[in-house]
């Protein structure tokens, strides 16, 4: 790694211990110190009990992946120590509750603090042990009390939290880490928050979603902020209603989006095809998790790529975008809305649990895409599906006096009336498919390239970016990442891969879907690194896997 400060902490406990919240507060506190942070959250599909852990990595340089080794383990239960102590780096320390019986026996350096007792004494709910633990960590890292207090004041909000923290801070001991502090606050976003904000920034006005891990937090975020963002946020009876109401809203003039995971997306496929035929600007976010079917709902996999590329009966233009971190999630979701409206066709944003539910500290761009469309300028009789060179017809919305706006799922003539006439059918198919040319032109450049001249090229898409980018830097590899998967940016990739001796594809699925897509487009794939146990690549693991092949 870079010769620069970095520091990882693992927080572990049972579901219901507030592990995630603890990690988030720590990450945010460090962001406010100007550090870059990344939070990886690992939790089973249950509400209380089981074993949850979060790894928060912080560094002075940009990061968007976690490491297996950690400097500190904050253990809210014994199991955490047992499961994770092999992760501790040299000089690593375990922070844990005095009450943990095993604590004394563990081989590593340990600092025990009476968190449970503090909470009890202050009559705070037991979950506030997490605040106590945070305070011990802050103290251990020699971060001034005032910083913690301020973070808690702004983010956790209750006085009781503060008291618990203060007490624990006092009872905890300093460590030897010298935590740096920079001037500039770092912004922080979960992947799904970045998706939500990207959509909102581009002009989203209606969001509908049925809950499904790992997409639900888009719904939760937008619902919590709907008044502030000026967006209608609706949780309907099922995914079919969600996508069809989004289609209805878009037809009537409101930029609309829905979000789901693979199983929910499967239910939206009939409507996707409708959006293709009726030329509706529709954005669907698909946050992947391990399948098939219910699979492993709270873990990660990039197993739905091939599915989303060709889902839907019949032939129609579509775009599939795959962001790799929060910043890209923001930009590409905004772009998704822009493209959907510019071309009046469905656009998919493909995420996965690892992107959607990890926390990134990144800045969002000042410039971003916004919804724009070819508006009908009035005049003659309005024809919703008027032929045009680029396949895009001028748009008018129902409600204006001078237009009759007829959308339809049937093959149709320019006015939107049903046709079964062979020439008309062929012409309309061609009209719609013509949009692919414009889409191709606009998306052709969407490839991320790093170390352009290195002889060995690593290829990946989506959330694998985080680990891959560090490996590429560390090992001097070229990193090439298509951000758009349909249309496929063949020319740009050809340029990006020019002169590469070796092409290694890495992705988190069992059959190498990106590799297949590359092969389909005529690219040579020399080696594949696949992972399909539901876990993302950590920096260290990907390093080992790549090293093996070199």
């Amino acid at each position, binding site marked *: 790694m870079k010769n620069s400060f970095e520091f990882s902490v693992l927080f572990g406990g049972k579901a219901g211990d507030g592990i995630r919240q603890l990690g988030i507060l720590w990450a945010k506190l460090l962001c406010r110190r100007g550090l870059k942070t990344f939070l990886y959250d690992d939790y089973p599909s249950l509400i209380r009990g089981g074993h949850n852990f979060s790894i928060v990595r912080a560094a002075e340089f940009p990061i968007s992946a976690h490491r297996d080794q950690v400097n500190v383990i904050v253990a809210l239960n014994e199991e955490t120590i047992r499961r994770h102590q092999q992760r501790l780096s040299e000089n690593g320390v375990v922070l844990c509750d005095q009450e943990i019986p095993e604590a004394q026996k563990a081989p590593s350096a340990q600092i025990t603090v009476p968190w449970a007792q503090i909470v009890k004494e202050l009559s705070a709910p037991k979950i506030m042990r997490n605040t106590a633990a945070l305070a011990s960590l802050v103290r251990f890292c020699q971060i001034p009390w005032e910083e913690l207090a301020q973070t808690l004041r702004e983010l956790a909000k209750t006085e009781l939290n503060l008291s618990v923290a203060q007490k624990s801070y006092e009872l905890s001991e300093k460590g030897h880490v010298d935590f740096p502090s920079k001037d500039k606050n770092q*912004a922080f976003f979960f992947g799904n928050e970045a998706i939500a904000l990207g959509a909102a920034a581009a002009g989203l006005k*209606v969001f509908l979603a049925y809950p499904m891990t790992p997409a639900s937090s888009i719904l939760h975020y937008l619902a919590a902020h709907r008044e502030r963002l000026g967006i209608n946020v609706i949780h*309907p009876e099922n995914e079919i209603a969600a996508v069809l109401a989004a289609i209805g809203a*878009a037809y*009537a003039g409101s930029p609309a989006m829905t979000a789901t995971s693979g199983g929910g997306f499967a239910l939206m496929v009939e409507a996707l095809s*409708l959006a293709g035929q009726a030329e509706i600007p529709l954005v669907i976010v698909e946050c992947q998790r391990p399948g098939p079917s219910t699979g492993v709902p709270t873990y990660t996999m990039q197993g739905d790529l091939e599915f989303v590329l060709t889902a839907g009966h019949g032939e129609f233009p579509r775009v599939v975008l795959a962001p790799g971190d929060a910043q890209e999630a923001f930009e590409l979701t905004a772009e998704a809305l822009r493209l959907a409206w510019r071309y009046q066709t469905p656009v998919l944003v493909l995420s996965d649990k690892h992107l959607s539910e990890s926390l990134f500290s990144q800045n969002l761009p000042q410039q971003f895409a916004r919804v724009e469309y070819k508006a009908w300028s009035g005049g*003659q*009789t309005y024809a919703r599906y008027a032929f045009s060179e680029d396949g895009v017809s001028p748009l008018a919305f129902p*409600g*204006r006096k001078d237009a009759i706006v007829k959308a339809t799922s049937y093959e149709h003539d320019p006015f939107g009336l049903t046709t079964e006439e062979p020439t008309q059918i062929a012409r309309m198919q061609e009209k719609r498919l013509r949009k692919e040319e414009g889409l191709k032109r606009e998306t052709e450049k969407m490839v991320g390239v790093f170390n352009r001249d290195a002889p060995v090229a690593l290829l990946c898409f989506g959330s694998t970016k985080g680990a891959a980018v560090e490996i590429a830097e560390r090992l001097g590899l070229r990193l090439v990442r298509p951000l758009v998967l349909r249309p496929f940016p063949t020319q740009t990739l050809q340029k990006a891969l020019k002169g590469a001796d070796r092409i290694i594809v890495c992705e988190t699925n069992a059959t190498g879907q990106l590799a297949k897509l590359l092969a389909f487009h005529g690219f040579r794939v020399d080696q594949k690194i696949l992972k399909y146990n539901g876990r993302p690549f950590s920096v260290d693991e990907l390093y080992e896997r790549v090293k093996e092949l070199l």
Partner: protein
Amino acid sequence: MNIFAKNDPLATYAGNTWCPGCGNFGLLTAVKSVLKKFKETGRLHETLLVSGIGCHAKIVDYLAVNSFYSIHGRVLPVAWGIKMANPTLTVIGHAGDGDAYGEGISHLIFAAKRNTDLTLLVHNNRVYGLTTGQFTPTSPKGFPGRSTPSGSPEEPLNPIKLALASGATFVARGYVGKVKHLTNLIWEAVKHRGFSFIDVLQPCYTFFNTYSFYNEWVVEIPSDHPYEDLEAAFKLAEKWDYSSQAEEIPIGIFYKVKRPTFEEEALIETRDFDLFEHIRKFHQ
């Protein structure tokens, strides 16, 4: 070129392809009368039809007004989304019985539950017309459709009871054989704020010709019916359970009450926001 029929400003040039004798003609007449009223007050452009797929759905091709010819079973979610984008539009849904009571039944229940402000007309011919004559949820037991040549094994659903149980605030039944009565019903439904549901008895001349049956048994609900009494409505709905026997088939409004609409309860005024202020506040 334009979209209109030669001598009828409410019609498009699309040729009508319903069978001669189809009950949909009566429904078209009734809807047209209602649209005419909108036209007269200069509000036709604020009306919008949404249809499913089936014989019934062709109605949107015939009428020169805004429309969304959607997919089988999905009239209501599309209409709902349209209202989210523009609550000022008057939205009328046209669904088939296969459409509304089979494929799309979930949406009917939720439109009723939410009291979404729109009107749903179910062209209930008690058969899948366009797919050539299979039994639907409201076909009588024993109906010899193409998927049940030796007779449907199921008792029919009673959509009036279902709509009542789901919380609909305007529940009615019409009959295409009484066009004037039907026109009035539709007009009342459109005026009603909230979810208005009309089950329209619409004989399918080709696959299930029920004209004489309805002509014999249809009775208008008397005007002293207690419209706000759910139990009375339920009782009235029980008079006929969509079987092939009847003693009386009430038509008219079964139930009508006021309740806040979904649009009133759930929607906010959309507007733009300042991204960077938002980030400073919540992400730093």
